[in-house]
């Protein structure tokens, strides 16, 4: 009778000791305040803590991270990093370990995760098309060979994806609820679409065009969406300037009742009415915009610029379209990422080897972290947004 009690006590003591050790070794942590910073030249990723402005870990082994992008698992624990070299890498933000990696093509451009968090899709230049993987295991699930450079891949509500071809101007819609999905092919998006976005409500897909002045819009609530041209001929016949860096439409967001978007080959931000998609104004800017990103809530739009004018950020007031603040954080500003409620913005300054953090109300510098050629910055709040 005594012996079972003693052994039970011993077992409980050991269990407690084990638990206590574990608790000491790692405080429980949430990922909601975390994010990642791409170190472009060295193929590494920093795991950062947004609230303390600190680097928690530096993880290597991601391959060629030029033009890298990131999506997050639905629980915010894992980052899926898409590399230029076709690498798809799954990073555990809590342990700092790479838990899966596949080289899924020779040359990739970006990715997306399905609304239910089960599928990760990657858009490829070479061979062109989209490949879809199981988010848990990174096992291959489906392939869509488009035979063309594929851009503008986004998640669409209803376990769907949309993507567009640079060469052919087609947009494909795939419904992954089907056992053997047949893409719905929408032709006539326009000449050389370079990037696309889906609005935060998941309804409108808009492709920017490099080969002509204008953008193309699809209403995804329609059973068979047909392209509608918006801002046709916005350059008004002027010769466009050489484009040293393609603008990005991702992050392009509703700002009040207007959208702001970067013009291609022009020193302008264009404003669109969010219902009619008619032009309602333009803002002359410092250079050719790369990102024109709305601060969450839409009160301001922050703009960075293409080489060689890429040392400057301008902040536009949404209500008036005026430039209300202009400053020079440093050489080669590549990306801006807002805290989910917009109080701060993180800015990667590639050639200064820094990420700088600013208060969006006062524009004061509030923090700085060192990073090797930083480019994209991605916070886990993206896990719960359509199209990010």
């Amino acid at each position, binding site marked *: 009778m005594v012996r079972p009690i003693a052994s039970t006590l011993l077992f409980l003591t050991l269990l407690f000791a084990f638990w206590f050790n574990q608790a000491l070794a790692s405080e429980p942590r949430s990922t909601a305040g975390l994010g990642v910073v791409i170190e472009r030249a060295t193929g590494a990723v920093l795991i950062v803590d947004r609230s303390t402005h600190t680097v928690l870990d530096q993880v290597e082994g991601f391959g060629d991270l030029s*033009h890298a992008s990131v999506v997050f698992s639905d629980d915010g624990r894992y980052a899926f990093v898409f590399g230029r*070299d076709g690498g798809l890498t799954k990073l555990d933000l809590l342990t700092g370990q790479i838990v899966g990696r596949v080289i899924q093509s020779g040359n990739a451009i970006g990715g997306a995760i399905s609304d239910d968090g089960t599928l990760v899709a990657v858009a490829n230049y070479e061979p062109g098309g989209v490949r879809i993987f199981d988010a848990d295991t990174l096992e291959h699930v489906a392939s869509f060979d488009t035979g063309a450079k594929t851009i503008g891949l986004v998640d669409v509500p209803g376990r769907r994806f949309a993507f567009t071809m640079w060469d052919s101007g087609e947009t494909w819609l795939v419904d992954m609820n089907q056992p053997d999905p047949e893409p719905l092919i929408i032709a006539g998006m326009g000449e050389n679409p370079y990037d696309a976005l889906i609005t935060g409500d998941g309804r409108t897909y808009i492709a920017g065009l490099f080969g002509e002045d204008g953008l193309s819009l699809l209403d995804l609530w329609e059973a068979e969406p047909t392209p509608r041209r918006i801002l046709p001929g916005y350059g008004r016949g002027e010769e466009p300037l050489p484009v040293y*860096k393609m603008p990005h439409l991702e992050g392009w967001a509703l700002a009040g009742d207007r959208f702001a978007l970067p013009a291609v080959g022009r020193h302008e931000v264009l404003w669109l009415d969010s219902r009619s998609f008619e032009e309602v104004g333009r803002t002359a800017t410092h250079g050719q915009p790369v990102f024109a990103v709305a601060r969450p809530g839409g009160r301001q739009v922050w703009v960075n610029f293409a080489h*060689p004018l890429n040392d400057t950020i301008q902040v536009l007031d949404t209500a008036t379209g005026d430039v209300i603040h202009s400053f020079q954080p440093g050489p080669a500003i590549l990306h801006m990422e807002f805290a989910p409620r917009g109080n701060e913005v993180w800015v990667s300054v590639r050639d200064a080897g820094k990420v700088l953090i600013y208060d969006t109300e006062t524009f004061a510098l509030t923090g700085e972290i060192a990073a090797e050629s930083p480019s994209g910055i991605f916070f886990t709040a993206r896990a719960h947004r359509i199209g990010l």
Partner: protein
Amino acid sequence: MSRTVAALCLILCAAGPLQAGETPLDTAALERLVLQDCGSCHGLTRKGGLGPDLRAEALSHWAPEDLAQMILDGLPGTAMPPWRALMTEREAAWIADYLLATE
């Protein structure tokens, strides 16, 4: 003897990269430009992206002068912009040689 030295100097000076009155190229800045800014479209490893493969082997059939010309004037009808406003002909020639010589 001294004539040989003088002749040698003449040859070396003529063949050297630095002509009289020219400032030296900032090759570190040019190398960074190739890596980072050409890399935007052609990839950091130059394997290609929106723009084609720029690795030495893929370019081996090009003459350096033609490459330099393409850099300066761009390729109309494609996304390759003219870089003439941002660099000198010497710098474009250096980049062309660099692309052909560097893996």
